[in-house]
C-alpha cells in the first residue's frame, strides 16, 4: 500500500515544488505556468482533450498495426535470406533516420490532399517501424543453438524453422520492440499531424501547436499531459502484455 502510494507522493511533491517555485519566482505563466494553471486548463478543456486524445490514439494504433506487420514481414524476409537481410538493413536504418518532416510532402501527395489521415498513419508507421524490425531481426537470431541443431537434424526447411523455432524464440525481443514502438507510434502520430494533418483535424497536435502559437502555455501543457497519459496507458498495456507473454513463453 505504502509502495503503491510512493509514486503518487513523489509526483505530488514534484508538483508542489513546481507550484511554489512558480509563485516564489513569479515566473510569467506564458513561460512556465504553475501546475494549478495547468489543472484549470485541464478542467476547462477536458472534453475537447478527450476527443483529441482519442483521435490521436486511433491514428497511433493504426500506425502501430501497420508498422508491426511491415516490420515483422521484413524481418521474416531477412531471416529467410541473408541477401534480403543485407539489402533491407540499410534501407530500414535509412528509414529510421529520415525525419518525418522531410518525407511528409511526398507522403501527402501520395495519400492525396483529401486523405490526411492516411498520410498520418503512414508517417507514424514509419516512425514506429524500426524498433520492431530491429527487435525481430535480433530475436529471430536468438534461438537456442542446440535447438537450431535439432532442426538441422530434422531436416527442417527454412519456412518451418522460421515458424516453429525462430519466431517463437523471438517473442521476448518482439515484445520489447513493440513496447518501444508503441510510444513512438504516438509521438509519430502527433508529429505527423503537425506536418500532414488536415489543418482542422482534431488530434492533440493541433491543440499543442495552437496553444503554443497563442502563448497559452498552460493549455499546451494540459495537452502534453493528456499525451503523456495516453502514452503511459499504452505502455502499461504493452507491459502487461509483455509480462503475460513472457510468462506464457517460459511456461511459468
Amino acid at each position, binding site marked *: 500500500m505504502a509502495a503503491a502510494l510512493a509514486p503518487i507522493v513523489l509526483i505530488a511533491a514534484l508538483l508542489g515544488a513546481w507550484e511554489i517555485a512558480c509563485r516564489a519566482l513569479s515566473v510569467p505563466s506564458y513561460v512556465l505556468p504553475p501546475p494549478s494553471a495547468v489543472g484549470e486548463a485541464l478542467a476547462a478543456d477536458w472534453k475537447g482533450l478527450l476527443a483529441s486524445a482519442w483521435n490521436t490514439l486511433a491514428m497511433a494504433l493504426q500506425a502501430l498495426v501497420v508498422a508491426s506487420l511491415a516490420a515483422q514481414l521484413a524481418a521474416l524476409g531477412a531471416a529467410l535470406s541473408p541477401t534480403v537481410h543485407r539489402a533491407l538493413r540499410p534501407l530500414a536504418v535509412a528509414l529510421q533516420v529520415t525525419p518525418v518532416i522531410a518525407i511528409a510532402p511526398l507522403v501527402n501527395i501520395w495519400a492525396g490532399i483529401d486523405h490526411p489521415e492516411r498520410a498520418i498513419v503512414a508517417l507514424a508507421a514509419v516512425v514506429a517501424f524500426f524498433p520492431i524490425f530491429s527487435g525481430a531481426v535480433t530475436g529471430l537470431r536468438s534461438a537456442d543453438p542446440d535447438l537450431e*541443431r535439432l532442426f*538441422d537434424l*530434422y531436416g527442417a526447411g527454412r519456412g*518451418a524453422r522460421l515458424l*516453429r523455432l525462430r519466431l517463437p524464440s523471438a517473442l521476448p525481443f518482439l515484445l520489447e520492440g513493440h513496447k518501444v514502438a508503441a510510444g513512438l507510434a504516438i509521438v509519430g502520430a502527433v508529429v505527423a499531424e503537425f506536418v500532414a494533418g488536415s489543418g482542422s483535424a482534431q488530434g492533440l497536435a493541433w491543440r499543442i501547436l495552437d496553444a503554443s502559437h497563442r502563448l497559452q502555455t498552460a493549455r499546451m501543457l494540459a495537452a502534453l499531459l493528456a499525451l503523456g497519459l495516453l502514452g503511459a496507458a499504452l505502455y502499461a498495456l504493452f507491459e502487461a502484455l509483455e509480462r503475460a507473454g513472457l510468462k506464457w513463453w517460459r511456461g511459468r
Partner: protein
Amino acid sequence: MIAELDEVEVSYGGRAALGPFSLSLAAGEIVALVGPSGCGKSTALRLLAGLEAPQRGEVRRDAAPGETAVVFQAPTLAPWLSAAANVALPLELSGLTRREARERAASALARVGLAGREAARPAQLSGGMAMRVSLARALVTSPRLLLLDEPFAALDEITRRALADDVLALWREAGPATVFVTHNVEEAVYMASRVVVMSPGPGRTLADVASPAALPRPPGFRTTPEFRESVEQVSAALAQGMAAA
C-alpha cells in the same frame, strides 16, 4: 556402415578436445561410449550427427536429414511448447498430420513414464522428466541413426533399467544404429554390442570390448560371469587410462 569417424581430431581455441579418434558404426549396431568427464564423448556424438566438422580426419555418414535422432546431454526442449508438442515436433516437421503426431507423441510419452504430463511445459518438469521428454522425442521418429548423450544420467536405477529395455525394444523393432554415452559401465555392457573406452584429455580409443552375448540379451544376463567379466574389463581400461593421465 551408417556412420564413421576416421582419425578425426577436434580442438577448440587451440586446445585439443578429441582424437585422433576413429569409430565405425555398422547398421544395427549398438555402441556404448564410456570415458572420463571432458574426454570428448559429446564432441564425438556431434561429429557423428554431422553438427560439427573435425579439424582433421574425415566423417562419413549414410543417413539422410530426418533419419538421425539425437538426445543431447542437457534436455533441449522448446520452453514455449508442451511436452507433447515438443515430442510431436519432429513428426510434424516430417509431414505427419498434427493429430497423428500428437497421438504418437502421447504414446511415446507414456512409454517413458510421463502419461498424464502431456500438457506440462519444460519449466514445470523435474530434471529427470525433461530428459525423458527429450528421449521420447528421439525415439518417436524411428531413426536410422540414434545418438544418445547420457540419456539416463538424471534417472533413478529402476526407471533407468526400464528405459534401457525400452530402447532395446525399439532397437529390436526398427534396428537403428545406436551410439550412446554413459558413465554406468554395467549399463554399457548390458545394452551395447560393443563398448568403446576412451582416454582422458583429448580422447582416443583405449579399448573396444565386444559383448559376450548376442542382442537381445538373454534373461538373467546381468548375473552371468561373462557379463561381470566384461564389466571388469571395461572398468580396468578406464582406470588404467585415468591413472596414466
